[in-house]
Structures are given as structure tokens and as C-alpha cells.
């Protein structure tokens, strides 16, 4: 008989390789005024950040700024790890918890406060205690809903426990939206998330019947816009942005019961090819005009105190001075994420 031999590829291996291999380097050095390569989030972030910050920076300094896109912070870390001996990237904008990992691995460089004077304008919450790059954007967890099929918009996270079954999309841990929701839930029932998270987990378990998917695909914004899910938890900046893009079909709520911040830091790469241009860019990114421009463009909250947003922008972003902010220790969280993920699977999601 004819025996068919099957070549078996290690699927696991290919997934890992895909996760690390993507993302190209910046171009060759532009000799005239120098260049700087900035690694950051792809798609909407890339487009808006280029328009609001990179273009203005180029105009002001004559330095060519190249945006190198990546799908998420983990992919950025993968790229930094893979070229740690010979980096092509100068600046990275990534989630603070992943930045902590990169710092621990020695991939990022400390900043000299004298060369980056704008760092001192960053609010307390956004400072790095060890002198590494500070926060460059703040974002916060919101609820989004479909304005056409939902007649009574939710006002707070606790309202999600009252919505119809099978109508909510929640990105569960290890996604940090799920982590942030857990912290907010603990806060709401008066528990300290660093002491005992079980009460919050029990409360979240009651939410399970309402949840349609714990892994919104392709993302929460699309599911809600096309009414596959009626509610979701999401990040404010994209929610505001897609609310405009969808012509109002997607509605974003600033929840009354607590604000959880997601922090993107801006960091210089250790041994980067263009260190001067890198510091120049970081300083510019923390300037009032850059912070205001990006806030107006995509509703990320500024991280500096010396900026005044126009009213129509200010009402759609959360201020780091807001009293209802629930602070999250993302450095502490980095080591707890696996444990929380497992608690979610056991007690919240189920089989």
C-alpha cells in the first residue's frame, strides 16, 4: 500500500517564531541631520502618533523619525531581545509592565535628567523611581456599548452585572484589561487587591453568564460596533477614537466607580545607534505641544502637569489628577499575572 508520511512541523515553534520574527528595522542612517527609530504600537496608534508627534518633531529638528510598528508590547520586547547585541531601535513606547521586564534584562538605558528636562514635568504617577523612561501616555479602562441596541447605557462597571446574558465581551487575563477589571472590582467591594483577591474573583464569577466571549476577536471595538456583543470593557483612547470612526454607533462611558490607568512609557534603548536623537525625541514627546497634539488626535491622557487641554478634548480623557483613580502597581502585578490568570480560569471562566 502507499503509506503517506506526514511532515510534522512544531506548531508551537512556529508560533514562537512568528511572535518574534516580525517587525522590521528602521532604515539606514540619514547622514544629514540624523534619524531616530521609534518602536511602538501598530495601526491606529502608529497613524495618529506619526501625524501628531513624529511629523512635528521632524519639522522642528530636521531629524528623520521612523515609526517601527509592532502588534503589542510583547512583540516589542521580542524584537529588543533578539537584537540586544546590535540594536536598530532607539526609542520604545511600550506598556510599563513589559518595560519593567526590559529594564530587568538590561535592554533599556537610564535617562540623564539634564538632557531630558521635560521629564520633571511628568506627574508623580508616571515617574520611574530608578531613572528610566517615564510615562508618555495614560489610558484608562472604560465600558463601550452599542448605541443602537442598548437603550439604557451603563454608567459604571457594576452595571455590567445587570445586563442581559451573553452580551458582554471581556478580554480576560492574561490581557491587562481583565487584570485592571479585577483590581477595580476588588476596590469596589472594599478589598485590597494585593492582600486578598479571592473576593473580587468570586464577584467576577457572577458576571460569567453575561459574558459572550472572554477573548474578543478581532477586538472589542469591532464586536460592539457590529453588535455581535452589546457591551465590552475597553481602553478609553481607542474607544473615543472608534466612537468617532463609527459615527457614534460605538458609545464610550467614563465609569463612575473607578479609573484604572494603563501606562505606556517611553524609553531609550541601551547601546542604541542614535542616542542623541533618541534623547531629543523623548524630550519632545514629553513636551506640552506633543502631549496636547496626541491627546487631541487619539484621546490618550497627557502625562505631564504643564499642559492645558481644550475643553472638548479634556472631557473625553481622564486626568491623572482625578480623585477616583485606583492605582495599580504594575511592577508588582508582573509577578502576579500568571496566578490571577489561573484564578480566572478556575473560578470565573470555567471549562
Amino acid at each position, binding site marked *: 500500500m502507499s*503509506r503517506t508520511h506526514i511532515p510534522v512541523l*512544531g506548531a508551537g515553534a512556529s508560533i514562537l517564531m512568528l511572535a518574534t520574527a516580525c517587525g522590521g528595522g528602521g532604515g539606514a542612517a540619514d547622514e544629514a541631520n540624523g534619524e531616530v527609530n521609534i518602536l511602538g504600537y501598530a495601526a491606529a496608534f502608529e497613524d495618529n502618533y506619526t501625524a501628531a508627534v513624529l511629523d512635528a518633531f521632524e519639522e522642528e529638528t530636521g531629524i528623520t523619525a521612523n515609526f517601527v510598528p509592532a502588534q503589542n508590547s510583547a512583540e516589542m520586547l521580542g524584537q529588543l531581545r533578539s537584537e540586544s547585541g546590535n540594536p536598530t531601535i532607539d526609542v520604545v513606547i511600550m506598556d510599563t509592565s513589559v518595560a*519593567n521586564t526590559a529594564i*530587568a534584562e538590561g535592554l533599556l538605558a537610564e535617562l540623564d535628567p539634564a538632557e531630558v528636562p521635560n521629564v520633571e514635568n511628568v506627574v508623580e504617577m508616571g515617574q520611574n523611581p530608578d531613572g528610566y523612561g517615564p510615562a508618555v501616555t495614560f489610558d484608562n479602562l472604560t465600558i463601550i456599548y452599542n448605541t443602537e441596541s442598548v437603550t439604557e447605557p451603563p454608567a459604571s462597571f457594576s452595571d455590567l452585572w445587570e445586563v442581559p446574558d451573553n452580551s458582554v465581551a471581556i478580554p480576560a487575563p492574561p490581557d491587562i484589561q481583565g487584570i485592571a477589571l479585577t483590581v477595580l472590582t476588588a476596590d469596589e467591594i472594599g478589598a485590597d487587591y494585593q492582600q486578598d483577591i479571592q473576593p473580587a474573583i468570586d464577584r467576577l464569577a457572577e458576571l460569567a453568564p453575561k459574558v459572550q466571549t472572554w477573548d474578543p476577536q478581532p477586538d472589542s471595538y469591532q464586536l460592539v460596533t457590529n453588535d455581535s456583543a452589546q457591551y465590552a470593557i475597553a481602553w478609553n483612547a481607542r474607544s473615543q477614537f472608534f466612537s468617532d470612526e463609527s459615527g457614534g454607533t460605538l458609545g464610550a462611558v467614563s465609569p463612575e466607580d473607578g479609573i484604572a490607568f494603563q501606562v505606556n512609557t517611553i524609553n531609550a534603548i541601551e547601546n542604541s545607534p542614535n542616542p542623541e536623537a533618541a534623547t531629543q525625541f523623548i524630550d519632545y514627546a514629553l513636551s506640552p505641544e506633543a502631549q496636547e497634539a496626541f491627546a487631541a488626535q487619539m484621546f490618550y491622557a497627557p502625562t505631564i502637569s504643564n499642559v492645558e487641554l481644550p475643553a472638548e478634548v479634556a472631557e473625553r480623557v481622564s486626568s491623572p489628577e482625578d480623585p477616583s483613580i485606583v492605582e495599580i502597581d504594575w511592577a508588582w502585578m*508582573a509577578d502576579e499575572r500568571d496566578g490571577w490568570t*489561573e484564578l480566572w480560569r478556575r473560578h470565573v*471562566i470555567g471549562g
Partner: protein
Amino acid sequence: MSAAKTTQGTPGAAPGDTSRPAPLLPGRGNRSRTRWELLALLIPGLIGLLLAFILPVLAMFRMSLNEHGTAGALVETISIASYQAVLSDPFYWQVIWNTLVMGFGCALAAVVLSYPLALFLVRTTSKWKGVLIALAIAPLLTSAVARTFGWIAILGDQGMINSVLLALGVVETPLRMNNNMFGSTVALVEILMPYSILAMISGFGRLNPALEEAAGSLGASKFKVFTKVTLPLTLPGIFTGFLLVFVLAISAFVTPRLMGGGRVFILATEIYNEATQTLNWPLASALAMILLVVFGLFILLYQRAVKRIDQG
């Protein structure tokens, strides 16, 4: 002769008859020369295999021996901590179990559904045979992602099936057919069926219409012909189809990810999460190595089974 004339086989050829391929070049000592030439022909493939498979797997194995330090930092070391972490955690045993159950479920369903199709395609004397075979495997022309979204459109809460059921009043709330193991499995079965059909068609070589006719002429009813002749003779094809779908299913990522709703925990999705969310590369690599071992075990079992069929 009539169109129904039986195909002419070569039953006289004993297994030992299959002679060696003729030497490529005449002349003295051509046997050893031929061997070297054959080896030389293999070199491009071997280099490709080395670069694209063996080295990455070795790198992955090396990675699995590292440790996951505080703040997610990668610690270069030689340690089996990640394997210990996986194998001592009942959750990961559950994940391995889920993966195997899904693989078996998909393989079984795909084989059961593909078998009649493959049998028909092998037997048909229609002049459209080529077109029919092409149609059966045409879904491969569409990406698995597109077909997965197609299934979301069918199985979703506002999908085709639920819309019909709701409209007919059969159900009051939509059935949950998406965002769980059920939806992932259904979509995966359909996505993998062309592979099992192809594997079966190529594995049905021993099936000859004359054998079934002979069984019939000897008094076997249609059912007996199937159980005594057709089924045993197509068993190797069934095994191949089963194995192919099984390995593709246990390594499938896109469909369980898009249709699992975060409720399907299998090795591929866990590897992805550990690699890209938790950033625990050593653990992700250890899981990938375990998946490789599972592959290897099943291929070993398959070859045993096929050998047994061939002999017994």
C-alpha cells in the same frame, strides 16, 4: 469493451518483485556513485530542513531550559523548572487533555464525514471526477481565517442557525454555538476535512471495484461487502486521514483562538499566551516541546497501526 470493464491490476507482482531503481549512470562502480549523487540531490532539502526546522527546534529547546525571573525577566540558565512547572500543574494536564480530546474529536468527525465523500470520489467513473475532486479540496484555496469568520457568521448568536431557530420559535434565546469548544471543533472539522479527503483518496490504493464485485458474486450482501472488504482495505487511508487531521487539529491555533471565546484552553493557545502576554518564553517553549512529543508519540502509534494492518 463496455465502460464497466474491470480495471486490470498487476496481481502477479510479489512484494519482492519491486526492483531497485535503475542506476542513474552506467559504468563501473556506479552503485556508490549513484548513492552519492542521490545524497547530493537531498542536500538542498536537508539544508532547508536544518534552517527551517531543526535549528529553530533546538533553539526552542534551549529556550525551554531558561528560567522566568522576577518582573518577567528572562534568565539564561540550564534548568528544567519550566517542565516541572508544567507537569506539576494540574491545569496544564487539563490543557494537554483538552488538546488531545479536541484532536480526537476533530479527527473522528472529519474521518466519518470525509469517508463517504472520498469513497465516492475514488469510485466515480463520471467524466467530472477531476472537477469533483478539485471541488472537494477547493476550500483549501481560502485561508483558514476567512473560513473561521465564515463559521462565526453561521454559528454566532446572530448567525444563520440561531436566526432561523429564533424565527421559527424553536428557541427563545440564541444557542451558544460560538465562543466555546463546540464552535471551534465544528469549524476546525470543516476546515480540516479537505486534508482528510485527500489523505483518504491517496490511501485507498488497494481498493479495486473488482474486489467488491467479487465479494458480491460470492454471496456477500452490500453491508457484508462493506464490512469484510471495503472497510478493511480502506483502513490505511482512514488511519492516514485520522492522523493528519489529528496533528493539524492539536496544532491549530487560529480557529480555537477566534472561536474559542477565551474558553478553549489548548496547547497552542497557551503557548501563544505565554509567549506574547505573560512573556514567559521558557514556559512557552516547554509547552511547545511537549506538543512536539505528543506529535511524535502519535506518529509512532500510527506507524505501528499501519504496519499491523499491512501484515495482519
